[in-house]
């Protein structure tokens, strides 16, 4: 998972927050509530994040790759959480985290780009319209101020695009390529001896591949908290994480990614201090991964995954799952976790309760194209 590069952080840090913000005019924010959406680009494997220990088929399907008992911590209903998620696991114990399993958008194909586009637009089809659901959300809020949402990204992601003005950070310096890009280059060059060999040599001496992803994740968490703390700062933020497309070496890669995600959340919580009690964080991915392991110690593109709702404002300590099971017959198209929960139903419920708007109204205003009919309520205090 790589979010931003350190140079950018130095830039922000060097200017000081007060010097960085003025280009954005924040008049009295409409609300003291903070809402953060963290997208996991690349399709995160729900099964290994919130792990169904009770489901024997999991162990059969995953074989050697199946998480061991000492790699997880038990939660409710026989589910367990990956041990890389220490902070998020603690939030669960403190009843500030709820996990929703077997969740998906209406999308049923397996293209990352289309699926991410749908998840961000709140649409039923890719590129159905231009404005994202987070942008439409701004229009729904009372006394909305045009600049109160921010993307921690170089460009405005689709979820925030639209008529309401949003701001974004972009790094002042060169950004390191994502892990996803780095792992694919070797196969890109597999029929090209010159480039392949040069790339191999580069890898042997490179620092890029190892990078400072963990440090970056922490710094981004700190910056996000600072921005959301500022008296006249934004109250809605979107963060992007990537590297979740674990076709190979899933065990190691997922462990690292989850540690970074956990560190990001930990820094946001710590940085927000008292404001954490007014905060709701949603973490979601575009689709899940195959229930079975593939032949390269990884998993391929699937359908349902898990989502997380965290924060001081969250009524947590639950795993919500309408579990169909992982037996062949119960899988979606005999391969993926069967989707039973609706992503837009979750978002409608969470956003409605967060902002004191009827969830049904949120569903109609933000997700009309997909008409969610299973709204998940009671997640936010």
């Amino acid at each position: 998972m790589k979010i931003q590069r350190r140079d950018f952080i130095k830039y922000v840090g060097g200017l000081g927050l007060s010097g960085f913000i003025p280009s954005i005019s924040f008049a009295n924010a409409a609300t003291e509530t903070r809402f953060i959406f963290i997208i996991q680009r690349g399709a995160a494997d729900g099964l290994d994040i919130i792990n169904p220990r009770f489901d024997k088929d999991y162990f059969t399907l995953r074989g050697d790759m199946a998480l061991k008992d000492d790699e997880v911590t038990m939660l409710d209903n026989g589910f367990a959480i990956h041990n890389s998620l220490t902070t998020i696991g603690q939030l669960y114990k403190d009843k500030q985290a709820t996990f929703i399993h077997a969740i998906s958008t209406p999308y049923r194909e397996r293209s990352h780009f289309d699926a991410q586009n749908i998840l961000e637009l709140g649409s039923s089809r890719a590129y159905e319209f231009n404005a994202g659901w987070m942008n439409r959300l701004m229009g729904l809020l009372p006394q909305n101020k045009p600049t109160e949402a921010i993307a921690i990204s170089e460009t405005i992601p689709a979820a925030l695009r639209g008529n309401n003005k949003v701001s974004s950070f972009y790094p002042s310096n060169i950004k390191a390529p994502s892990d996803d890009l780095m792992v694919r280059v070797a196969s890109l060059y597999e029929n090209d001896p010159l480039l392949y060999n040069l790339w191999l040599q580069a890898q042997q001496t490179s620092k890029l591949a190892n990078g400072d992803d963990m440090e970056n994740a922490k710094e981004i968490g700190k910056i996000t908290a600072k921005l959301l703390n500022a008296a006249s700062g934004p109250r809605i933020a979107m963060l992007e994480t990537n590297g979740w497309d674990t076709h190979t070496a899933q065990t190691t890669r997922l462990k690292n990614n989850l540690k970074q995600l956990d560190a990001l959340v930990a820094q946001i919580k710590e940085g927000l201090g008292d404001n954490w009690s007014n905060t709701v964080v949603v973490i979601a991915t575009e689709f899940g991964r195959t229930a079975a392991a593939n032949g390269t110690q990884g998993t391929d593109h699937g359908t349902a995954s898990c989502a997380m709702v965290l924060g001081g404002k969250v009524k947590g300590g639950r795993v919500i799952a309408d579990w169909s099971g992982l037996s062949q017959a119960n899988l979606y198209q005999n391969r993926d976790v069967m989707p039973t929960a609706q992503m837009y139903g979750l978002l409608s419920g969470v956003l409605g309760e967060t902002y004191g708007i009827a969830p049904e109204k949120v569903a109609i205003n933000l997700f009309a194209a997909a008409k969610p009919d299973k709204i998940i309520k009671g997640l936010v205090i």
Partner: protein
Amino acid sequence: MSINTQGISFIKRFGYGKSLNNLNVGNITKPYMPEIDESYSSGLPNMIADYLAAQKSKDKDMIGEIVKTSFGNFISKRVNLALNAPIGFHERLVHFWSNHFAISVDKRIVTLLAGDYEFSAIRPNINSNFHQLLMAAITHPAMLEYLDQEKSIGPDSIAAGRAAQKGKKIGLNENLAREILELHTLGVDGGYSQKDVTEFAKALTGFAYIKPKQDTLDFSNVGNFIFIPQWHQKGSVVFMGREYSQNGYSQPDAIIKYISTHPATAKHIATKLARHFCADDPPPALVERLKSAFLASNGDLNQLYEVLLNSPECLDAKNTKFKTPWDWFISSLRVIGVADMDARLINRAMKTLGQEILKPEAPKGYDDIQSAWAAPDAIEKRAEISSLMVAKFMPQAAPIDIANEIFGDTLSENTLKIVSRAESKQSALSLLLISPENMRR
């Protein structure tokens, strides 16, 4: 001549590759002529006057500002033209010749003058003949400054005599003379000796450019070439076995005319053009055709371009070129449809990629062969820059559609597969930009 200038391979090999902003290129009869409005004024006279005034008053901030503005404007314009030309053959030629007659912005005064050099000496002359282009290049203040010609005074000139009376010694500087022979015209094996270099250097004394005069505010001629007879070495010179006994400017003029149509020059230019547009080791038959065209037309450059365009070797798929950083950078930006770019970002990217604009280490310019650029570090840097550019200029279109539009059936199944499987648009497009198909042309 019938050439399909719309073909993906044509645009890739002769131009800067298909651009997302210009997907439908028409058939163009003379693709070596300017495709888009290239007019640009550097405001040379006032720029030099301001610079020299700032230097006189030792105003370092002002000097820095003048140089930065001048070079920044030039860089943006250069990139802008390369991004927006539908094919980019004309732009490629400009950059080829600009590198052939290399200057380096290592020197501050050269940085100031670089934009005017490329836009008023190189660009307007690449469709004329070689002699005219050569004269424009070597009499421009940027070249005179870069290769120290203004410091070269004939030891037996009027100026040297006056200096001697004051106890000062001034004399020859062979820098420009040597590089004209070795790099611009005859080539290193062009049949001249060290003595010829010295003789040519003597003939070139007097080459200078007009500086502002103290008693006037009329700067209109400032920066123009001037021959100063008082600096010129008196007497005849013997150059490559011939005596040149002319007085004054007609002496260097005669020598330059001689070398600019010399067979060695024809071969040198033919080889470099063929290397640039065809292959690192250019096919001898192509070099021979270019050389003949050069000699038959007295160096009419359009004739040479016609030969290139009509040579099957240039479109032969086995003759590929590994892109230089500049070539890769421009063609990559075209893939994702960038139309305009800020000078600071361009400079930063080109520095990272290892080929700062007009900043070669030596007067021979940047190398034009694979072994100079295909290094492990270079590939990683291209991956880095791809990521940055894609993030900053994310196009609306889907990566697969872009890949198909730009590369068509020249794209391998493997690249298509890798690009379509990437986990994000950013990753997919970055991979496309560093794919084997986009690393070469």
